[in-house]
């Protein structure tokens, strides 16, 4: 990281003056934690007793046979407590919050996973908690909203802008500038003003550290390629960090192709041609914006990928050619999900399934001596309303109609 939180030309902290002091203190707390070996120890301890770390690396034997190329391994972040990699980041920030002595946390959420994880952490650490969530996402991910509320969090549906993740982030910042003394903003991905991209990536590096050890033990050598979906970029940064300095490992980030890169309805910032450099939400990165610098609407079947910006660290790694970016369309995602459920009995989140799509495209090109790893960032249970809808399941519809009758 360069001075001022830049990665190459990307990143920085473009923040309202009111937050200056808070960011200064946060950065100091982070540096102290990074220099204190007990901190990481405490973090590992928490993650292995409250969540289920190390998460397994599963050999997908049937998919491997089906594609007839590289051995396919799946890193199982879905088995984390609350069902996604988001727990890693949130628990880490929770420990920082304890150190900083703040009593309240806020967070934005898209898929609801980060909100779930934050509400969970707040319950465990006894913190007050408010979650901002775009109204569109509230509708897409209602079960998560219910659980957040049951864990004592207040969930505020954000009705501004595109009513999705970026608007929730804006609203969270508005809360933060108002309640800056009492409150920590638990940003959910490797985006936002410095030191968030670095901090979130640091906590998520637990994925890559484990995965590297596991693949060496199981496969005897490094994988040929590692795949991760990219929303804000935290799960991708998490697993990539295990292999970043091993040049023989290709790192592949998969963005939301939505209805197709040419359709204008997608959320691909680092592949495709619709994004350009910009500064918003406190940092500089590639944004989906028009020529005036106004952010565009994005689209993905996966709420957690439906975001205009992307981690500045990934923009840098893309520019330097260290990470290759691809995209997967909504339709490709549904097909890959179906296959994975049937062949392996595993239900990846819609977000995670984007990584599977690209891995499936490339596995046949590789040799059976090669291994590839797909980072399964979360489980698909949360997506039941979206998935059942997308598969047009008639008995699901009947069920919902019958339930609604009871309620009306």
């Amino acid at each position, binding site marked *: 990281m360069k001075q001022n939180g830049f990665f190459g030309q990307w990143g920085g902290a473009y923040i309202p003056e009111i937050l200056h002091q808070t960011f200064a203190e946060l950065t100091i707390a982070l540096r102290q934690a990074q220099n204190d070996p007990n901190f990481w120890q405490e973090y590992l301890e928490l993650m292995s007793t409250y969540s289920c770390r190390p998460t397994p690396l599963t050999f997908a034997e049937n998919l491997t046979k089906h594609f007839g190329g590289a051995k396919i391994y799946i890193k199982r972040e879905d088995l984390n407590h609350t069902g996604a990699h988001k727990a890693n980041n949130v628990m880490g920030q929770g420990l920082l919050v304890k150190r900083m002595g703040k009593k309240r946390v806020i967070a934005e959420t898209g898929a609801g996973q980060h909100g779930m994880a934050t509400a969970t952490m707040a319950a465990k650490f006894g913190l007050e908690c408010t979650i901002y969530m775009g109204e569109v996402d509230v509708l897409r991910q209602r079960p998560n909203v219910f659980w957040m509320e049951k864990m004592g969090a207040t969930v505020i549906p954000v009705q501004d802008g595109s009513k999705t993740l970026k608007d929730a982030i804006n609203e969270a910042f508005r809360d933060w500038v108002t309640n800056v003394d009492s409150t920590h903003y638990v940003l959910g991905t490797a985006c936002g003003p410095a030191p968030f991209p670095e901090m979130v990536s640091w906590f998520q590096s637990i994925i890559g550290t484990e995965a590297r050890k596991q693949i060496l033990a199981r496969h005897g050598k490094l994988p040929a390629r590692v795949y991760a979906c990219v929303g804000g970029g935290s799960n991708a940064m998490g697993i990539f960090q295990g292999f970043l300095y091993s040049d023989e490992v290709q790192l592949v980030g998969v963005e939301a192709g939505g209805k197709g890169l040419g359709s204008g309805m997608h959320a691909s910032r680092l592949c495709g041609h619709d994004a350009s450099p910009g500064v918003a939400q406190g940092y500089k990165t590639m944004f989906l914006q028009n*020529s005036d610098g*106004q952010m565009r609407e994005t689209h993905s079947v996966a709420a957690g990928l439906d975001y205009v910006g992307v981690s500045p660290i990934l923009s840098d790694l893309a520019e330097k050619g260290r990470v290759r970016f691809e995209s997967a369309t909504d339709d490709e995602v549904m097909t890959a999900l179906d296959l994975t459920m049937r062949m392996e009995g595993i239900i990846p989140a819609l977000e995670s399934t984007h990584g599977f799509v690209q891995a499936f495209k490339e596995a046949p090109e590789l040799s059976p001596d090669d291994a590839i790893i797909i980072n399964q960032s979360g489980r698909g249970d949360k997506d039941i309303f979206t998935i059942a809808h997308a598969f047009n399941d008639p008995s699901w519809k009947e069920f919902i109609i019958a339930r609604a009758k009871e309620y009306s």
Partner: protein
Amino acid sequence: MLLEKKLRARLEKNKILLMTHIVLGYPSMAANRQVIAQMVAGGVDCIEMQIPFSEPMADGPVILKANQDSLAAGTKVADCLAFGAEMTARHDIPFLFMTYYNIIFKYGEEKFFKDCRDAGIVGLIVPDLPPEMGENFFKLATEYQIAPVLIFTPTSTDARMAELDKVAAGFIYCVARRGVTGKQSEFGKDFNTYLARCRAATTLPLAVGFGICNRDDVTAITGLADMAVIGSETIRLVDAHGPEAVEPFIAGLR
């Protein structure tokens, strides 16, 4: 710089100046024209015109909605610059642009400064561009003689104020409280201490903003600061009573 000089000149005539705020293109540029005319007639000393942005992170609900509606109606950055030129030509008070950094970044920093200068704009307020992030921006500001107005806040330490003062010009915008635009502030004892700290940190004129709504608020800061900033309140007024309500409102503030 130009802006500070103009404000100091006006301070000769008034103990407290008034700065108002509008969102360009909300509800329309035609309405903006009327409102500005009313403001000027009401005796305003300075106007900040916000170029709308899709992600106005530091703004509260009233201005946020105005930004979104303006964009939805098709407002373009180029229109805003042209409108600015028109206003500076028509009215003899200092005009500033307020916007978020991405608008400038995307437009091209140097081109933006050049076009602002050509339009007769004398200051810029960019709430998400702290000095650390704007090396080039602040260099250009000096070069093009357009005042980069910076913000003091109740959370700013003395050291931070000193740092900000080094690059700021025109005036310092002291936000009255934590939070976003548009909510009431309380001007109590803590506030006075805070303003005293601001005064000690800079020789620039001090503007106070965030939640100034009426004559009492203006009176409360007279003597402590040099300029009162009326933001969301005029938007609410125009929404409720139309542009004609603006002149009497402004005229009644002091």
